[in-house]
């Protein structure tokens, strides 16, 4: 079964026809798709990179001192095992700004 025949089969199904004939279904699906990808990618970018990017762009003063120190020390004695262990901890548990407020 070639990719073209698979595409043609999908095209002929009920949902495919409904989406093709509707004026709003395709844009609506696209919009929800973009918002969903934004939340997924945004969470990875903002939480996984955390302070590292801030430190790289020299705006580490934007995050609290404790947080920057935490990030700085992680960068100095980088330990893959500890970093992997840290990933399984609850999201905000190691963010020092909790203690600073």
């Amino acid at each position, binding site marked *: 079964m070639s990719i073209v025949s698979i595409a043609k089969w999908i095209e002929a199904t009920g949902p495919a026809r409904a989406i093709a004939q509707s004026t709003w279904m395709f844009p609506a699906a696209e919009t929800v798709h973009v918002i969903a*990808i*934004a939340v997924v990618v945004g969470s990875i970018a*903002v939480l996984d990179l955390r302070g590292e990017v801030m430190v790289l762009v020299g705006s580490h003063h934007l995050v609290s001192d404790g947080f920057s120190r935490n990030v700085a020390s992680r960068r100095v004695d980088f330990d893959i095992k500890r970093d992997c262990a840290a990933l399984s901890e609850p999201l905000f548990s190691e963010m020092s700004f909790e203690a600073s*407020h």
Partner: protein
Amino acid sequence: MLESLCAWLEKTPLSTGIQNVGWIIPVSQTVHILGLAAILFSALSIDLRVLGVGGRRTSVAGIADHFLPWIWIAVALMATTGAILIIGEPRRDLLNPVFQTKMLLLICALLATLGIQLIVRGAPSLGGPGGGAAWTLRMMAVLSLALWFSIAICGRLIAYFM
């Protein structure tokens, strides 16, 4: 007036340059969506914390301190890539009612975000870990979420009008 602005803009060397180099517009669009990703998630994090839905282990001020810089950096990134897209294809955007609505909503969203920042910075102890937040702040959070999501929707729908 907008019509003549577009006519002038699309003849500028900057605009023709963007039009002639094939990768500039797709790259700008991609970076623009990555900026949207940072804003939507940051706004969700702050606003849901303000509303007491999530992140209750950290104070409202703690969450805001961490995520607000991301919003402002991403806004700058989106403004830059957005400007490139407008200069490259002025008619597609400036004359589009969806784009015009989006810009109006953007001004409101920026004001709402600034408002949240001022309220939170003015009262760092507000809604300490586990607590809720003041009524005005909650209203601003709902408004902020509605505005940023509407902006994202308008952004996608620009392609469907005109």
